[in-house]
């Protein structure tokens, strides 16, 4: 193996160029929505345009100041997605209000949540100067995650919306604690596995070329499985349940390098999925809608509409503002991928999926180059949770897998999701800055007498 000479490069200029392009995409999408729907550029384009520019300049300056060696492409990719999402939500507001003027508009609140997300992003970069500090808070984050997961179940503040008990309403604000729990869990898993991985890597029996773990080491994975099944049973949230369990299994695999864990995780997942299918009506409905949506068009209207939308979009799409994605229920959140597919076509949807792919690739690259085990695991876990989430949502909408309720990161309407995803990007950039920064200068030991151990003799 040859180690290439590592010259630390900041690449902030490249980041700036990409950010300009990303902001342009957001503004162009917004303007072309106006042109498509009403024939004029919307009068408040300056509002969204200005907001995007402020977002871009603010985040860029924060990074230049506190994380100068951070990865140069993550931020522009995220800004592009966020801008596209805002434009699409605005477009769906217009479309849905044409059907019924009483319907709520989400674009403005989404803009406010994006701003909150940026503040969280900057806050994390400024407050967490070294991601290894988080390792000392491993169990604090673990407890916080459990608390956040229990929160929606508490009477009074917990609320059931659309059959899933994943919402908390406090003082008129509603949010999903599960999104924050995801980040806390990733930190907890990373801190926990760094310490325990040697024990968990011990192999038991070898079956067809794969080392299966010892029976007595199955405790943590079973505990995590039980929590995931608990989410499925008590909160009726298929997506989060899958996300948390998948996150743990993959981080376990990354930490121990034993494919046996994937096998164990896969078996447990299969058992859980079968149990869910057998015991719960809502899981069975999702399965049936996936296998044959047209068997019951009334009940599966949403997924059928989404599929029609994608077909209507074709290769090049109908053009922003010229399709009819608003006909699909929850076209602005769960089905925003289908809305994008209808208006931007396969070409546009592929570009969006590629942008997600690049974000995940950057996350994995950060994990690869990171020098400490905790940062490695954390970056890999965050990147994987991102990948799994996009796969589950886009796969569900396109009927590759059964539909589950997860949010499309940065695009779907929903405050908690946007804020926590910005926080994830903040963490990734912090790890990346630590990783790419040149190593501190090593001075020879002989010269500094003052650090000698005191000799009593």
């Amino acid at each position, binding site marked *: *193996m*040859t*180690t*290439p*000479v590592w*010259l630390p490069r900041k*690449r902030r200029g*490249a980041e700036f*160029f*990409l950010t300009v*392009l*990303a902001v*342009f*995409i957001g503004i*162009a*999408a917004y303007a*072309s929505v106006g*042109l*498509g729907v009403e*024939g004029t550029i919307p009068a408040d384009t300056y509002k969204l345009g200005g907001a995007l520019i402020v977002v871009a300049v603010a985040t860029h300056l924060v990074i230049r100041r506190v994380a100068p060696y951070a990865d*140069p*492409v993550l931020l*522009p*990719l995220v800004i*592009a997605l966020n801008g596209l999402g805002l434009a699409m939500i605005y477009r769906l507001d217009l479309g849905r209000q044409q059907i019924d003027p009483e319907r709520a508009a989400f674009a403005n609140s989404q803009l406010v949540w994006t701003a909150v997300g940026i503040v969280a992003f900057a806050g994390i970069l400024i407050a967490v100067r070294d991601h*290894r500090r988080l390792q000392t808070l491993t169990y604090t984050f673990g407890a916080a995650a459990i608390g956040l997961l229990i929160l929606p179940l508490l009477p009074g503040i917990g609320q059931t919306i659309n059959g899933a008990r994943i919402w908390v309403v406090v003082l008129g604000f509603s949010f999903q604690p599960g999104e924050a729990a995801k980040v806390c869990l990733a930190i907890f898993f990373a801190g926990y596995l760094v310490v325990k991985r040697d024990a968990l890597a011990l192999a038991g029996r070898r079956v067809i070329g794969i080392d299966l773990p010892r029976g007595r080491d199955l405790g943590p994975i079973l505990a995590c499985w039980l929590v995931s099944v608990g989410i499925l049973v008590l909160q009726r949230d298929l997506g989060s349940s899958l996300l948390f369990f998948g996150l743990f299994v993959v981080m376990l695999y990354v930490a121990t390098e034993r494919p046996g864990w994937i096998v164990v995780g896969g078996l447990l997942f299969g058992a859980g999925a079968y149990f869910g299918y057998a015991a719960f009506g809502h899981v069975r409905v999702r399965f049936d809608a996936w296998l044959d949506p047209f068997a019951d068009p009334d009940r599966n209207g949403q997924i059928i509409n989404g599929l029609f939308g994608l077909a209507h979009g074709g290769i*090049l*799409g*109908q*053009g*922003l503002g*010229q399709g009819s994605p608003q006909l699909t229920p929850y076209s602005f959140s769960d089905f925003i991928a289908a809305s994008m597919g209808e208006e*931007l*076509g396969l*070409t*546009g949807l592929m*570009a969006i999926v*590629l*942008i997600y792919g*690049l974000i995940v*690739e*950057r996350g994995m*690259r950060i994990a690869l180059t990171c*020098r*400490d085990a905790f940062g490695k695991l954390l970056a890999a876990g965050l990147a994987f949770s991102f990948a799994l989430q996009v796969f589950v949502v886009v796969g569900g909408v396109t009927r590759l897998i059964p539909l589950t309720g997860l949010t499309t990161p940065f695009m779907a309407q929903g405050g908690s999701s946007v804020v926590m995803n910005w926080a994830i990007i903040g963490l990734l950039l912090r790890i990346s800055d630590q990783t790419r920064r*040149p*190593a*501190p*200068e*090593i*001075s*020879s*030991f*002989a*010269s*500094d007498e*003052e*650090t000698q*151990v005191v*000799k009593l003799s």
Partner: protein
Amino acid sequence: MSELTLTLIKLGFLAVLWLFVLSAVSVIRSDIFGTKAPSTPRPAKQGKAPAAKQKTKARKPARGVATRLQVVDGPNAGQSVPLSEGPILLGRGTDAAIRLDDDYVSTRHARFATNGEQWFVEDLGSTNGTYLGSQRITTPIPIGLGIQVRLGKTIVELQK
């Protein structure tokens, strides 16, 4: 707004979207297609590395390959362990390559490991820490020949 203009806007927007994706890819192309390995990696590395950042290398231009890990100071001074492929554990424990008889050293104190080219020293969560000069190390740090690493009262270095 005519049909044609809208179609042009649509196509233009898709083009910009892909332009963005491709420029992002071009910024990180070295990740995807790999860096071009220098044809003679060794001279290039030695020529550049001391000038770039490794001040100590410039001060002590030790050339060649390290063959042993030598204890130069402390209770076990004079002992050494030959270097091989595998990692070397230092500490007071029985599984250490050199059992250091030093009260300030932890049972499993530090580990020396190589990636085939470069040796690294890594602290294993010791009580009193592993130092390079005045710097307590928290991550694996590459070390060269003759750079002294301190564990408790013991000082070790790589030698030819």
